[in-house]
């Protein structure tokens, strides 16, 4: 974990207010949060790829990745799918409501190791969320990174979120967005097919850069193996993993993946670190 001032009790949340709530899609919404306490707010910093624990009163906590711009840490965005009991509860929050927040936690994207290299981001479904803060970060420091390519796959065109954001990235310098949907639709302008197929459209020079992935584990595994066949090294492929964290500080055991704690050793790992176990069901 990076040097973040944190109260002596790492389990205790702080009050945060919903500043804004954005509907992103069916059962998908973004909560923009602001810490109540001015001192905590001033001290709050995060790295792209880190996550917070959000607490809904009476329901419990849930790990949600931060999707906003790391250069603007006073407003912290979380894009959430209402999938479980806590996230279904969070779905009912409105601007002005208060919830609990702990964080940030975990090891994010390799912003230093990727310097000077091109970035190939490959995401599936809501997996695009954890990579957005990386894209913000790189676009703010455009000179530090090479070409940026986002390959993003959804099941149905209607599942696509962040439409405006993606539009703006398309217009950014040396930045390309390749979209695909498993099933097509009349108005769909992207590809139809799996996200691995978009790799056909990627300039082969990009496979000498760094890849960052987020999505369902079978998808990430298929993409990573595909990238290896295209000559990428396992150490240059990064992926963000997910488990049902309870404590977020490596104490509770829920996010163990072999010898790794996803909450503190990850959620971002190089493929070299997790390749063997990703191939085994039940880890």
């Amino acid at each position, binding site marked *: 974990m990076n040097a973040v001032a944190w109260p002596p009790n790492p389990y205790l949340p702080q009050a945060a207010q919903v500043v804004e709530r954005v509907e992103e899609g069916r059962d998908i919404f973004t909560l923009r949060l602001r810490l109540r306490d001015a001192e905590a707010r001033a001290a709050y910093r995060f790295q792209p790829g880190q996550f917070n624990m959000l607490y*809904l009163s*009476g*329901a419990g906590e849930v790990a949600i990745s931060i999707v906003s711009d790391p250069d603007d840490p006073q407003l912290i965005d979380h894009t959430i799918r209402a999938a479980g*009991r*806590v996230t*279904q*509860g969070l779905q*009912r929050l409105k601007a002005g409501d208060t919830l609990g927040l702990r964080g940030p936690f975990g090891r994010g994207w390799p912003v230093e190791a990727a310097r000077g290299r091109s970035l190939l981001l490959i995401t599936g479904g809501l997996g695009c969320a954890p990579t957005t803060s990386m894209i913000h970060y790189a676009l703010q420091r455009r000179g530090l990174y090479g070409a940026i390519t986002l390959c993003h796959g959804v099941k149905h065109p209607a599942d696509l979120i962040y439409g405006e954001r993606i539009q703006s990235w398309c217009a950014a310098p040396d930045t390309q967005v390749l979209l695909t949907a498993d099933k097509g639709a009349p108005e769909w302008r992207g590809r139809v097919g799996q996200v691995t197929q978009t790799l056909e459209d990627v300039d082969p020079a990009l496979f000498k850069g760094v890849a960052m992935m987020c999505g369902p584990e079978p998808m990430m595994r298929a993409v990573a193996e595909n990238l290896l066949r295209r000559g990428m090294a396992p150490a240059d492929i990064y992926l963000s993993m997910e488990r049902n964290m309870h404590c977020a500080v490596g104490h509770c055991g829920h996010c163990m993946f072999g010898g790794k704690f996803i909450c503190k050793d990850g959620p971002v790992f190089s493929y070299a670190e997790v390749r063997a176990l990703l191939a085994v069901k039940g880890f």
Partner: protein
Amino acid sequence: MTGRLRIAVHKFASCDGCQIQFLNLEQDLLTLASRAEIAHFAEASSVMQPGPYDVSFVEGSISTSADLQRIQEIRAASRLLITIGACATAGGLQALRNWKNHDEFVRAIYARSEYIDSLARSTPVSEHVKVDAELWGCPIDQQQLKRVLSDVLARIAPRIPGESVCLECKRAGHVCVLVAGDVPCLGPVTRTGCGALCPRYERDCYGCFGPQEDGNTRALGRRFREMGLSDADIVRRLRFINGWAPAFRAGAQVWEK
């Protein structure tokens, strides 16, 4: 979805013990009544309002042809349907008839069997309609009921743990009656929720909270066999209050001659 929830409590074939657990909430029942409208609760009030209901709690098993009809109506009138107790969740003790000849029972017991309208099998609600959550137990546990009620009031899905009784025993510091006393305790394959009530008094769990989420009744049966229980003893142990629950049903089947 705003305003007070409309809650109903319905009764089918049962002893009313789970409804009594509701009534015995006492002060908490008043809190519930202040936050929700209790629209239908035969055990508590003669005022019984028709649906729709936000939440229907259902006690009792489906045991007559009238039950078959009524459970469909309740389902159609309820946004959430939550079963309470072994009868509604697993068919109850009265499901023991499911292995026997129902008509013979009726003829043996009632002078005028033509007045008796009961089904050959007593079955859980989930065999007939979609169930959103199941509270196990004979009777249900009040602490668990309160948790479910506060989840329901907060409009979030209830959390009902499915793990074994053993975790509760060990957390509470109860010594294992099986390991330390060769007592045929069903705790390892039984669902938590009772507060490990029987082992607390050095008694064996008899499975009144039904099967745990993914236990191994076959292996426990083998252990009972080693302890000297007969095949018939093992069948009787598992075929009791929750005998019709699939895991206990299968576990007993193994030892049936």
